[in-house]
């Protein structure tokens, strides 16, 4: 794999994560349990979509095939997406959504902080802009996980169930492969596995505060960021997200 091809893959991974999670979180718009959370979730979704424009915009530039961020988002099918399996998982109840958000945000913040020192100035610039938004995301999702985990017996039960359900999707965030090796050698991005100790420390401490028990297993579903084995949920999500371009190809306004 050439350096440019690996960089394109890496940028799609970053952009597809924020795109798919942004869409998922946006599904709550008008449905959240309270008005304040509804607005907060929509803000988070918009932050993520904004970051997507930067990541996929740069991906299109690097690919040099004339594809824009919109083209990459709306005209690819399931097997071309490079997002983590975690972010395509359904929202479930509010607690499950916030658990997914916290597990992702914690990784996202570590990754972006590392990318601020990227050898590629364009990557470093996107990371520097995103890191402020994501610092807030993780503060908010973390507080909510603590509040609900250490809340009523009902909320505690739901949060523990969400953690048990989503934990097997955490490992993929730290899986190294040929793309990440290329990025690490070029000094563009860290090896994902290098972020794991810091992740385990922060997430472990927060879960303890939330009185939640981390599952005693490192089993990890994989295949999202390589595009080889997405879960069945991504295809359904795309039928919603890409509906307009599928029904009216090339439509603009």
């Amino acid at each position, binding site marked *: 794999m050439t350096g440019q091809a690996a960089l394109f893959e890496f940028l799609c991974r970053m952009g597809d994560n924020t795109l798919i999670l942004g869409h998922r979180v946006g599904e709550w718009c008008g449905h959240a349990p309270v008005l304040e959370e509804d*607005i907060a979730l929509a803000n988070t979704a918009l932050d993520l979509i904004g970051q997507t424009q930067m990541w996929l915009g740069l991906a299109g530039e690097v690919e040099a095939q004339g594809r824009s961020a919109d083209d990459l988002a709306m005209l690819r099918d399931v097997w071309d997406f490079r997002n983590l399996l975690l972010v395509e998982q359904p929202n479930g109840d509010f607690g499950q959504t916030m658990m997914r958000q916290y597990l992702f945000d914690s990784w996202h913040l570590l990754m972006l902080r590392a990318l601020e020192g990227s050898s590629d100035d364009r990557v470093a610039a996107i990371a520097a802009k995103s890191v402020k938004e994501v610092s807030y995301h993780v*503060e908010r999702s973390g507080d909510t996980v603590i509040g609900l985990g250490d809340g009523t017996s009902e909320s505690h039960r739901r949060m523990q169930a969400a953690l048990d359900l989503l934990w097997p999707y955490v490992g993929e965030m730290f899986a190294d492969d040929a793309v990440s090796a290329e990025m690490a050698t070029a000094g563009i991005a860290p090896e994902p596995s290098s972020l794991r100790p810091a992740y385990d420390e922060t997430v472990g401490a927060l879960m303890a505060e939330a009185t939640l028990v981390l599952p005693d297993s490192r089993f990890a579903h994989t295949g999202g960021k390589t595009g080889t084995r997405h879960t069945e949920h991504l295809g359904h999500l795309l039928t919603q997200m890409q509906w307009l371009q599928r029904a009216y190809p090339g439509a603009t306004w």
Partner: protein
Amino acid sequence: MSAPNSAYPDTPEAGKPKRHEWPLWEVFIRGQHGMSHRHVGSLHAPDAEMAVKNARDVYTRRNEGVSIWVVEARHIAASSPSDKGPLYEPSESKVYRHPTFFDIPDDVGAM
């Protein structure tokens, strides 16, 4: 636990049924160019920390502020509308209290 049941000022808490709602908070924001915090509205939140976060999300989406204060609405003591006469009318006839009889130099700035 002495958690407040009432989100409104002047409402006694004792003997009230437990409210299954978050308390009400009043939000004050200092704008980019403002000099003091101004009341912008209210919201519900389980505690002060989340009230600040909710205020950030609800009231500063368009770059409105550089500082947020929140206070639980039940802690605000308010004047009574029926006391309007004795409270405010006496000052109506005292124009000499307005600083309109002085020329304020432009370079003094905002007073």
